């Protein structure tokens, strides 16, 4: 039947009787009608006159679809531009001889023996007679604040997420979730303000810190910014654990806490990891809180009670007063590149871990 239309038609060796189930089956009779060039017949006919007319030429559709397609690449463009334009300003650090007179990458990273100092030291002191651009005090400061913030935020927010998603009743949930979302909405400058004006004094009274503004104050304040992020993502991940897992576990005679620790938390692990990664990125790059609450002293020390100066705060505090295109300006942009790369790394590592966890659990497969 119509064998000439189809490639490899000889393969049609099935008896015709099997194809035509009933002798009376109304098979299209005049086969010879549509033979000549089978693929190029007229478009499908309309049946009844009352049928809607054929669609208008979708010019507008085409244009809009094109536009959507183009706009979709804005994010990619922005990403590239951010890197390019920040890196461009930092580039002289590698290439410009003028700037090399004052600062080099090596001077920034390796320990230096500065005039007037007893021993070699990492020092960040860009505005002095001999500008010193040692980045380690900034880096360590950033790490200190970040670690403190995460240590406070992660247990609290994961626990709160477990409580809200597993134990809390409908009414409790309806109070806690918007409240924490409200916390998320508090601008960081307000948190910074609160840390600076209120918290710092309290902490000093309670813990007897030497410097009112220090890594602990900044870290704890920072954790207030991180908690809602971690909580929200965690809570979502816990809520997304299929209720059927819980049912299955309960039906096997597991108590609530067993179900949570053995089924719900493992199943939500990728989401929890994602929340931590997100929170970490936020803590690392957060500017205003640390700018206001950390004391901004670039001291290289492990002591959390001392003032610290972070990468982001350094840029924010110093860029406004530097000579445009000068060595300090270039170094600050280099710090921005560093910040950018580190957050990029955190993001990437986070994504990768989550992907692997998901695959291990057979979700992505």
């Amino acid at each position, binding site marked *: 039947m119509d064998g000439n239309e189809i490639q490899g038609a000889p393969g049609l060796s099935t008896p015709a009787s099997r*194809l035509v189930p009933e002798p009376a089956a*109304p098979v*299209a009779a005049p086969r010879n009608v549509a033979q000549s060039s*089978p693929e190029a017949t007229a*478009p*499908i006919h309309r*049946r009844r006159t*009352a*049928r*809607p007319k054929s669609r208008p030429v979708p010019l507008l559709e085409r244009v809009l679809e094109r536009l959507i397609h183009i706009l979709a690449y804005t994010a990619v463009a922005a990403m590239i531009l951010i890197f390019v334009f920040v890196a461009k300003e930092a580039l002289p650090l590698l290439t410009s001889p003028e700037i090399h007179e004052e600062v080099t990458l090596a001077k920034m990273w390796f320990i230096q023996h500065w005039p007037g100092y007893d021993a070699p030291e990492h020092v960040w002191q860009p505005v002095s007679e001999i500008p010193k651009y040692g980045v380690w005090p900034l880096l360590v400061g950033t790490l200190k604040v970040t670690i403190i913030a995460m240590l406070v935020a992660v247990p609290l927010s994961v626990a709160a997420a477990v409580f809200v998603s597993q134990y809390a009743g409908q009414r409790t949930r309806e109070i806690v979730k918007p409240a924490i979302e409200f916390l998320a909405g508090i601008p960081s400058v307000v948190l910074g303000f609160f840390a600076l004006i209120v918290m710092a004094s309290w902490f000093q009274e309670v813990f007897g810190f030497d410097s009112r503004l220090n890594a602990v104050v900044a870290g704890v304040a920072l954790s207030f910014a991180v908690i809602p992020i971690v909580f929200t993502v965690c809570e979502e991940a816990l809520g997304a654990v299929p209720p059927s897992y819980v049912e299955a576990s309960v039906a096997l005679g597991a108590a609530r806490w067993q179900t949570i620790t053995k089924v719900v938390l493992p199943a939500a692990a990728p989401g929890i990891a994602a929340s931590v990664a997100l929170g970490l990125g936020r803590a690392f790059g957060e500017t205003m809180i640390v700018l206001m609450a950390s004391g901004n002293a670039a001291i290289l020390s492990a002591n959390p009670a001392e003032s610290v100066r972070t990468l982001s705060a350094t840029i924010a505090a110093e860029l406004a007063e530097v000579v445009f295109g000068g060595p300090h300006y270039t170094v600050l942009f280099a710090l921005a590149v560093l910040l950018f790369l580190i957050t990029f790394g955190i993001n990437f590592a986070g994504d990768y871990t989550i992907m692997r966890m998901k695959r291990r659990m057979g979700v992505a497969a």
Partner: protein
Amino acid sequence: MSTSIATAQPLDTPAGNLTVSDLSVFYGGKKALGPVSMNIPGKQVTALIGPSGCGKSTFLRSLNRMNELIPGCRVEGVVKLDDEPIYGSSVDAVAVRRRIGMVFQKSNPFPKSIFENVAYGLRIGGLRERSELGGRVESALRHAALWEEVKERLHESALGLSGGQQQRLCIARALAVEPDVILMDEPASALDPIATAHIEELIHELAREYTVVIVTHNMQQAARVSHHTAFFYMGDLVEFDRTQVIFTKPSQSKTEDYVTGRFG
């Protein structure tokens, strides 16, 4: 429309025969459906049965080019509605789908009013006049045996209907654009026996005016509802015959084994 005349159908309603010749479907280069050739007779119910993954849904979707929505899916062979190839280069997939409608396993009404659900296909087809819309919506709902149940609440949300009613609404929505063929992929598998009985009854009624092709996992349902039954196995069409024959005296032993429950 010469064929419709030749087969003594009234001039204004085409026969609705589907002729499938050497149809193969590939997903990303892997063949999922062997070359299948069959003539699906018009104005009858044809059931597709077979074990999971044998290609029933794939076959069904290739009858109205819905598989083109699946990335990496490729189709070879010829499918003709009456005498027009639906995969012709000058044939618009959108036009094909207006003549070959589809109903899915899970009822999927739009979150709009009952009226707007049924009117949707007409509106996107460019119909604007209120009065005609109203008439066509009513007629589609009547066809789907739903009119009496919903006529008082046409402008309420379709999501307020029961499962069985929603599925009939989806059928009405497909009927509104006046297709020749209606494809159904397990249309009653999510429903309880009572709603299922109503849908089956409706399918039977529809076969007066439409060609109906239905995929079902429920062999008893295929037996009850269809005039012809096609048994697929591992991507091949094993047997296609009158339902009565398939369920009393199939000619292939594979079919016999499957319908009698000898799955090995």
